[in-house]
């Protein structure tokens, strides 16, 4: 066998028993000792206030610099918007189709044409073009900033050590949290959205480019040096071209991230773009309208994604290079010719400049009717579903069996005999697992059993910090443990602990469902090509459609509250779980599969005994992404009434409280980073054990 089980070692188990003991004591004393439940308010460090005071000074002193940047950036943006608005729509479509053709051929060209036609026919052309104008500024900005950061941290190890954690924060602190300081610094306008989305979008560029530069083979570098190139020549003519594939992947990822933030620009306002349409219709809870507008954003994302991905494809690039100069410029000449023709034509045919209103096809009312019908006729089914999930899944995690079991919910009340029975069952399970399986599973049962009984939000802070820190210690060693410990202390001492626990609870509940359902879908997709083809466009849409849109039907069906938020988080965060599981299972080394088959594995054994363990690191990476996505969704679900850190960010946004926003945002980032590090180091350990590293 390739796989060797690690030696059974119980020395790591004793700290766990200690932690469980401390937890039990805390739980017994929590009614008597108030500070166990909540840190006394005079111990809370007013970090938020400090930030506010410092920010006020900073803004007053340096405002003028940022205001001039705003002014400078507004020129290319207004220019791009004015140009796109001025061009007759067929000319713009023609230009895009040709670019798509150059990038990857006819199929993409036709898709691009149809997608843009959709914007014309639904009457969303003008706001769509404003959005494109914004994106055309924010993408180069993010790519440029990413390029510079990558070069700096590639050249200097010390810079790299500073840049890496900042990248983590840039990706995990929700944009809403720093929207206020950016607004105050840069002044009003779509530039605020551009800057905010660039901050979020630039890390993938930095990461991919550093990776690309590091991967440049030493002999390539040497031959560059030997042919006498200067440092600058070496960088621009040798390193950058060799790193190009990775750089292009970075550009592609950055483009997608920038687009997902289009909606942020709309929250500030200042330009009538498609994000504003989505937000306004969302405010009116008009599902049809917001869906039709949301599709535009999804389509723009898909077009830019496919086109930029087409350019990253090496084989096509090489094919292109073999064409003669005339042949290569053919599509460009066609594009210019077509555009000129349409511009001239539009002088005589006004319908080509502004699409006639009478021809607009706008089926929003039909969609709304459908939603009404479902809401009216399936109310009973949806209520039952919601109550079942709440009573038997969400609420036990949140407030524990101790509080949830009542005649109203479970149909009976909790007696002390049942509590004892529960404790005995947990104990027996733990013993059995200890003897038959491993001490880890036995500890896991005890901890989970305790969590479910008392509820995540009712657990005093001390046991929680201890459990997480110990887990971090045993998976990632001292560094991860220190990070987890200080991160949790930060949340405790800045007074956001209870909100943080609400966020952790909601994400945890959603992530577990993603793990099960998404994992199963991933397995299914890895075994059937049909399933894979069926799931891919759904995944694409879920990821690029602004999530505000799906909230409306969820609200209609399930009302304001945690269940709606729970579903919304799942809808978004399940995607990476499906993708990574499928990818991991499909890319198990062929020779291993062959070997297993020749040994006579049944399909079931093949999946669970061979493929699963080997794909586990990749699957865990998917889980990692799922956790990050779930946390990112918290800000959105606060719009449908979920409490926790997401809500704090909004309260800060509306009360101009920069400090509170940043503290809450940092709290979310810390949860994400701690979870990320624990999962990553667990993955690394598994990979080591499997000999995959």
């Amino acid at each position, binding site marked *: 066998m390739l796989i060797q089980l690690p030696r059974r070692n119980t020395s790591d188990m004793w700290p766990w028993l200690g932690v469980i003991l401390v937890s039990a004591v805390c739980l017994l004393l929590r009614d008597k000792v108030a500070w166990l439940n909540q840190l006394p308010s005079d111990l809370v460090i007013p970090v938020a206030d400090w930030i506010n005071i410092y920010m006020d000074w900073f803004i007053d002193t340096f405002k003028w610099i940022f205001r001039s940047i705003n002014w400078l950036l507004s020129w290319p943006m207004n220019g791009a918007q004015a140009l796109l608005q001025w061009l007759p729509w067929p000319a713009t479509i023609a230009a895009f189709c040709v670019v798509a053709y150059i990038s990857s051929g006819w199929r993409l060209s036709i898709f691009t044409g149809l997608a843009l036609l959709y914007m014309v026919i639904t009457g969303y052309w003008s706001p769509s073009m404003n959005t494109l104008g914004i994106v055309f500024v924010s993408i180069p900005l993010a790519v440029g900033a990413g390029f510079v950061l990558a070069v700096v941290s590639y050249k200097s190890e010390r810079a790299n050590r500073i840049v890496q954690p900042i990248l983590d924060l840039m990706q995990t602190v929700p944009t809403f949290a720093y929207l206020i300081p950016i607004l105050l610094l840069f002044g009003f306008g779509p530039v605020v959205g551009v800057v905010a989305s660039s901050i979020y979008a630039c890390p993938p560029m930095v990461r991919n480019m550093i990776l690309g530069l590091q991967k440049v083979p030493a002999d390539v570098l040497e031959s560059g040096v030997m042919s006498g190139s200067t440092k600058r020549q070496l960088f621009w003519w040798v390193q950058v071209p060799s790193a190009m594939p990775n750089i292009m992947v970075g550009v592609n990822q950055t483009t997608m991230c920038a687009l997902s933030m289009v909606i942020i620009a709309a929250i500030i306002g200042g330009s009538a773009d498609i994000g504003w349409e989505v937000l306004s219709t969302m405010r009116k809870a008009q599902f049809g309208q917001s869906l039709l507008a949301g599709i535009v954003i999804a389509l723009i994302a898909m077009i830019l994604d496919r086109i930029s991905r087409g350019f990253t494809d090496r084989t096509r690039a090489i094919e292109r290079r073999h064409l003669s100069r005339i042949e290569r410029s053919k599509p460009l000449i066609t594009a210019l010719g077509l555009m000129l023709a349409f511009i001239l034509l539009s002088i005589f045919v006004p319908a080509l400049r502004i699409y006639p209103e009478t021809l607009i096809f706008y089926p929003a009312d039909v969609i709304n009717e459908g939603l009404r019908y479902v809401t009216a006729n399936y109310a009973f089914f949806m209520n039952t579903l919601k109550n079942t999930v709440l009573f038997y899944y969400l609420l036990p995690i949140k407030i524990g069996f101790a509080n949830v079991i009542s005649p109203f919910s479970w149909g009976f009340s909790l007696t002390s005999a049942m509590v004892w029975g529960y404790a005995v069952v947990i104990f027996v399970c733990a013993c059995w697992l200890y003897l038959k399986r491993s001490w880890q599973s036995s500890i896991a049962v005890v901890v989970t059993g305790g969590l479910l009984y008392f509820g995540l939000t009712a657990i005093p802070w001390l046991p929680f910090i201890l459990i997480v820190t110990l887990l971090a210690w045993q998976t990632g060693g001292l560094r991860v443990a220190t990070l987890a410990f200080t991160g949790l202390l930060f949340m405790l001492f800045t007074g956001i602990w209870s909100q943080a626990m609400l966020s952790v609870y909601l994400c945890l509940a959603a992530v577990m469902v993603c793990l099960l359902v998404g994992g199963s879908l991933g397995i299914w997709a890895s075994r059937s090509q049909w399933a894979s083809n069926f799931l891919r466009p759904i995944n694409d849409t879920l990821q690029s459609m602004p999530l505000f849109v799906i909230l409306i039907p969820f609200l209609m069906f399930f*009302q304001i509250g945690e269940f709606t938020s729970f579903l919304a988080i799942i809808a978004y965060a399940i995607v990476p779980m499906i993708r990574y599981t499928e990818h991991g299972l499909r890319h198990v080394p062929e020779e291993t599969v062959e070997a297993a088959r020749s040994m006579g594995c049944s399909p079931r054994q093949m999946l669970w005994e061979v493929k699963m363990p080997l794909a586990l690191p990749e699957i865990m990476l998917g889980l990692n992404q799922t956790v990050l996505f779930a946390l990112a969704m918290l800000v959105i679900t606060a719009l449908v*009434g979920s409490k926790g850190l997401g809500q704090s960010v909004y309260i800060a946004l509306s009360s101009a409280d920069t400090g509170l926003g940043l503290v809450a945002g940092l709290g979310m980032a810390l949860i994400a980073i701690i979870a990320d590090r624990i999962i990553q180091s667990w993955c690394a350990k598994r990979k080591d054990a499997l000999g995959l590293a």
Partner: protein
Amino acid sequence: MKLKSCLTVITIAILGLTTNAQSAVPESSDPIKLAINEWTGQHISTHVAGEILKRMGYNVEYVTAGYFPQMVALEDNTISATLEIWSSNIGEHYDKALASGNVEEIGDLGLVPVESWFINNAAMEKCPGLPDYKALNGCVQAFANAETFPKGRFVDYPADWGTSNVDRLVALGLDFTSVPAGSEGALIAEIQGAEIRKEPLMVMFWSPHWVHAVVDLSNVKLPPYQKGCEDDASVGVNPNATWDCDWERGYIKKLAWSGMAEKWPAAHKLLSAYTLRNEDQIPMMNAIDQDGKKLEAVVSAWVDANEAIWKPWVDAAM
């Protein structure tokens, strides 16, 4: 697509260039930028004013702006004026803007807002004593759901709008839990969803709002507002608690960039004098959101038909 064409386009007014010799209107041909926020009522209030300004000869530009972010824009004439600021929902951005000295209040809009608790028809049927608030405790079950049991469910304003209802529920001794909605869209989806499913609902809401044209909502009869009820326990029905009364009736303000009076004196006078009544705004709102008419068409029809109302403001301003 009602808003699409009106939001960005700078429109140069040709109308209204009458032979009024002594007036130098427009004093400056720079566009007066009016803020467009996220709700239809505000679009109407703004477009009516914009239309009158255009007929006076001004350049008017409509700029989409978030409700809070617009305060920053008012400070440097990125936005020249915003016309529907609800007194109940102003927050610190508002205070900061006024404190900067670059933003000034230019009077009330004249709309009379009602912010209070509303119930739908299903609630009236299930709970015969309503709309008197004293009947609420008798039918908590009708309002309860899985997340609020054993208490009733009261859908509240989003937490970031700031609300006193948690205290109010306690002060009035009601067995209800306040569930913050998160956003206006969530409030409306909740109201519409309850109406479709015929489920009772009690919700914090306001009027004028277009949803009243779609769903029949009535006010809960709370003990009337008395001055001091929010900070003096002895005032109101409960001698031991504050907030034991209805919401105070608010008002709606207009704000402008301070430089307006100097740059466009007549426009400044007009916007200061400008008012709009509930009975003007609500029919326009229904025409747009219910009948799907175009905002510009509805507004210009109103302006055509109501010259008697706005002509005196223009005359006084010129």
